[in-house]
């Protein structure tokens, strides 16, 4: 099983890969089922990422006059 995904992008990319791998075929039954299960896990992670997202806003303070 692959290591944990840290970002949405990572999970999304892996999902794309899993779909591609499964659609390409040529896997054994066990491999195909493992890829399918991994893909479904990534679907869940992606959706959770999107559901839990909350925009963060930071404002840089006092941009100094030096270097202008």
């Amino acid at each position, binding site marked *: 099983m692959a290591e944990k995904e840290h970002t949405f992008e990572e999970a999304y990319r892996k999902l794309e890969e899993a779909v591609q791998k*499964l659609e390409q075929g040529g896997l054994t039954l066990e491999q195909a089922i493992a890829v399918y299960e991994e893909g479904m896990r990534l679907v869940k992670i992606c959706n959770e990422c999107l559901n839990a997202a909350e925009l963060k806003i930071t404002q840089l303070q006092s941009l100094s006059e030096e270097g202008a």
Partner: protein
Amino acid sequence: MQIYTVSQVTSYLRELLESDLLLLDLWVSGEVSNLMQSSAGHLYFTLKDADSQLRCVLFRRDRDGTVLENGTAVIAHGQVSIYETRGELQFYVDLVQPEGVGLLHLQFQHLKAELEEEGLFDPARKRPLPPFPERIGVVTSPTGAVFHDIANVINRRYPLVELILAPTPVQGNGAPEGIVRALRALNDMEDIDVVIVARGGGSLEELWAFNEEKVARAIYASCAPVISGVGHETDFTIADYVADLRAPTPSAAAELATPDCWELRSRIDLYKWDLLSSISSQLSSWSDEVGRRQDRLEALSPDLKASRQRVDELSRGAWKCLEGLIAVRRQCVESLAAQLNSLSPANTLARGYAVVKHTARGEVISRTGQVRVGDNIEVRVTDGAFRGEVVEGEGENG
């Protein structure tokens, strides 16, 4: 006292004029006269006002389709120097426009041409935007609607990001410097994925900071790709040309910077269906394959049904055969029985013969010598028997 040659004087004057910063980058207004075009395509003319005139040349390489007419009021940009061959002061013009166009516009044209030539707008240099940005820097005013609009758009489209506002005034004195500082501060953070430089709509003067050379160079120097969203759809600034991507408005810049999470959700759903349909079609093809192999296995294995039928037929044949044999035997037995019957004494008895047995000894008496007078005998006839006693006898042999 030193004596100079004419060439030395004109050369000295040229150096003097060309080291003067004002004369190097000069804007002059005046009226065109004495216009003539050389065979090489250069334009020679005089700019004059009520009191003075200035000899001018516009070389073909700078003309860029410029058409001049005697008597028109123009604003020209260029450099003042000396034409040594003739010892004449000359204004080397590189840009000339009718006066009504306005100075800001001319400055814009001039800077645009200069930066374009330097390669700052080179399409090959435009960088692709990251498809899934995590940190987006925003260079704009902390007050006003622009940042609020950008934050709203991004919150709606892709709230997975962190927005970093680098605040700066976007118009008036100090705006260009502030924008440059903000861009540098974001550049120093190193983990910014994309930068939005934005300002709401305004007049040409209000948007002017985005036409400043130092702003253009700071955008060019940004490590992260820059999206410009300045003014309205119809406003083009130098910042737009140098940015990696121009957005018509600040909100459009926010849209271009982020993927749409609803689109992503539907794509994820699609991937889910792809996974499902792919695995189920593979499973069913595997199960078809198992079925096919089973069929082949059965085809290759001995045909039990046919064998059973054959056994059945054989055993039925055997049985028939056996029955035949039995019938033959039965006939045999019957004829033997008939034969036997023909040999039995019963028929002889029926014809009137009798069988005599010695009662005491039980033996059949066929000769006279077997009995004496007084012996008891048993006589069997066809329908029964009776007893008797030997009374007298005479043998053939005595």
